[in-house]
């Protein structure tokens, strides 16, 4: 492609307006180009790699300072907690699972979107995922790290947390493998490990890209550090062959894994005998909720990142619309599950089950229930309208209310089922303390510290993958090159556009723009 700035490209093919076919009819969401602004391969490298190479801007330090402050609050809260024990959390009879479990489930849920985008959408050949998967996977890793904080410190004696692992010990005892809590230890830690592997494998070619740029820029130390992590990647086709297979297999493995993780988390509740928890709907309902909140978090982060880092051509309005569709669908699934729960409680004829649910909606925690209902079921319904799905501020607002709603969902499930237990004399009203709040704010500190480091040092968009979905990555793009097939019709519009540009004044073809002279009919 001839070099076109993304700013000027907004006036042309697509941009943020509606992309159109050459005859002027608007393109469908399926046909619209994934990468806008008619970028060259080098433009993509430049747009993404630049942000890891530039001098650290002042704005980043400001954001990082805020994140570190919150991380400090986490340190303080954890220190106070470990010194005094989990009683500082406002946990008391009958509610022994409070904010800590709510936060754990909330963060794990958020941590589902990354792998879902990377793995499930990969298997379904949803090629639009390439622009957002890197950041979403990073988000997953950091969210899982935040999630693990809570159960780790909830055990009270955190210095013997290794009891949860099957390690031979002086007591000759083993963990209780029949407990869902132990399944959780395995599920979440293995999910974290596999997500890290998946993320790193995807990162190898991009690390090689910024390594080679560091070599050319003469930044030796940077090149050496990146060289270590890039493992000597060269882009050899003999390597790509195994690499792509490994990526496909990892996607195939991560797909059932991601579905199992939140199912196992839901077993923590469902395998118990508490009214309101003991339901078979929990696994699918939790997984849908996880996808819902995870996509919302990805949306929140990327709406900011694409603006700040000028990635509107890579993370386009189409991407936002597609994510909003997923938010709409999963939000409705979750809302349907809320209603089903009520129906089943009534239909079961079990008095205690019926009471648990009536108490949710009308009891002392009615406000939490109705925040949950409005944020999760009602607000996303706005996305039925296409123009609203493509409205940035509305997407931002709904992505935030979604995560508020999902936090309250976990609060409702955890607290309302516990606070009025089997013995009315022990009924109580649970409230969190300042240390609950400190730990929750602190977990955001951990999350944003890690995320800002990621934005600063790691390519935030999968460079190699984005190049792979650009029209000129297809060997058929080059008139008659490739294996002799005719030019696919969906490439024709791009080629026309490229030729028109190549015919422009300064953009003649000696600039190695990817279109050989011989093929440039207009040159």
């Amino acid at each position: 492609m001839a070099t076109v700035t993304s700013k000027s490209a907004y006036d042309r093919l697509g941009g943020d307006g509606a992309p159109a076919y050459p005859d002027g009819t608007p393109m469908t969401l399926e046909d619209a180009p994934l990468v806008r602004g008619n970028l060259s391969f080098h433009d993509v490298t430049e747009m993404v790699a630049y942000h890891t190479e530039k001098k650290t801007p002042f704005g980043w330090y400001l954001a990082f300072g805020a994140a570190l402050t919150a991380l400090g609050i986490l340190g303080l809260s954890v220190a106070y907690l470990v010194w005094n024990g989990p009683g500082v959390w406002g946990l008391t009879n009958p509610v022994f699972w409070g904010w800590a479990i709510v936060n754990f489930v909330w963060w794990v849920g958020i941590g589902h979107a990354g792998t879902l985008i990377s793995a499930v959408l990969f298997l379904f050949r949803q090629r639009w995922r390439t622009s957002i998967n890197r950041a979403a996977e990073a988000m997953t890793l950091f969210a899982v790290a935040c999630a693990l904080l809570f159960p780790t410190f909830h055990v009270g004696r955190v210095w013997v947390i290794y009891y949860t692992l099957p390690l031979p010990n002086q007591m000759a005892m083993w963990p209780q493998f029949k407990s869902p809590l132990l399944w959780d230890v395995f599920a979440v830690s293995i999910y974290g490990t596999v997500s890290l592997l998946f993320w790193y494998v995807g990162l190898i070619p991009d690390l090689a890209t910024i390594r080679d740029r560091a070599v050319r820029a003469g930044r030796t130390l940077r090149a050496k550090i990146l060289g270590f992590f890039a493992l000597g990647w060269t882009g050899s086709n003999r390597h790509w062959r195994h690499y792509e297979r490994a990526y496909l297999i990892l996607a195939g493995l991560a797909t059932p894994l991601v579905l199992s993780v939140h199912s196992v988390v839901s077993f923590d509740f469902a395998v118990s005998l508490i009214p309101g928890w003991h339901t078979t709907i929990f696994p699918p309902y939790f997984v849908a909720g996880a996808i819902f909140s995870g996509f919302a978090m990805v949306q929140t982060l990327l709406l900011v990142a694409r603006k700040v880092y000028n990635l509107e051509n890579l993370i386009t309005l189409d991407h936002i619309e597609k994510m909003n569709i997923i938010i709409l669908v999963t939000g409705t699934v979750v809302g349907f599950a809320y209603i089903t729960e009520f129906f089943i409680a009534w239909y079961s004829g079990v008095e205690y089950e019926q009471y648990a649910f009536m108490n949710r909606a009308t009891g002392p925690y009615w406000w939490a229930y109705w925040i949950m209902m409005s944020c999760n079921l009602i607000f996303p319904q706005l996305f039925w309208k296409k123009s609203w799905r493509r409205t940035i501020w509305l997407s931002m607002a709904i992505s935030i209310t979604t995560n508020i709603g999902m936090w309250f969902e976990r609060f409702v499930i955890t607290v309302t089922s516990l606070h009025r237990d089997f013995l009315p004399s022990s009924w109580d009203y649970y409230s969190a303390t300042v240390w609950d709040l400190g730990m929750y704010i602190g977990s955001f500190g951990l999350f944003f510290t890690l995320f800002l480091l990621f934005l600063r040092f790691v390519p935030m968009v999968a460079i190699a993958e984005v190049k792979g979905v650009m029209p000129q990555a297809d060997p058929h793009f080059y008139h008659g090159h490739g294996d002799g097939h005719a030019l696919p019709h969906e490439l024709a519009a791009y080629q026309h556009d490229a030729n028109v540009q190549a015919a422009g004044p300064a953009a003649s073809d000696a600039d190695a723009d990817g279109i050989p002279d011989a093929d440039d009919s207009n040159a």
Partner: protein
Amino acid sequence: MLSKIRQTVEDRGNQHVGLLAEFSDPGALVEAVEGLREKGYTRLDTFTPFPIHGMDRAMGLPVSKLGFMVFGGAVLGGILGAFLQWWTSAGPQFNWWPSELNQFLGYPINISNKPLFAWESSIPIIFELTILFSALTAVGGMLALNGLPKPYNPLFHSDRFGRATDDAFFVHVSSRDAAFDRATTAADLRGLGATGIEYVDHDGASLVGDDAEAGTAVVPAGGAAVAPHHTTGDL
């Protein structure tokens, strides 16, 4: 035996000694590989910023064997997950077991006379360990099959080669190829439309033929951190 191993190692170390030719685009690259294969070259490789659709077929490469390795890892993980849970909760007690190693024996606990081991409650952990071992095999196997990490590669001597991870498309013909001859192979590459040809060995990289005479080292584009026109970079 030893000499055979030495031969293999040396072969591996030298596989990237040979001619490195740049092509303008993925389409030209696929054609070049097909052309070279017609001329009888077999020890070819291409270097591209992203995997090229149809390149495996053009190079005549079979499907990766990684899947079989991963299956082995999956079976191992599943068996381990089942064994771990059975051994620790229902494992046998041995009279001959040395008491110092008691901690490695199972610890059966009878709860309401429920079975000590049950498949139903063992499924989640069997499943998770199957996935863990498969994923580790997939990544480890991919690195092993690719011979990574590989910190040194003679191709890194070429300044132009750095663009293989950015926007350039290279074909490499190994000097170990039976049909390799520096001059004729360079001419073959030229005939297929190469835009720059270098001979790369352990001592360095040098341009070949017309490129050397004209001194047309293709200037690598954009290495320094210069703000691209389309970014403000405030954060």
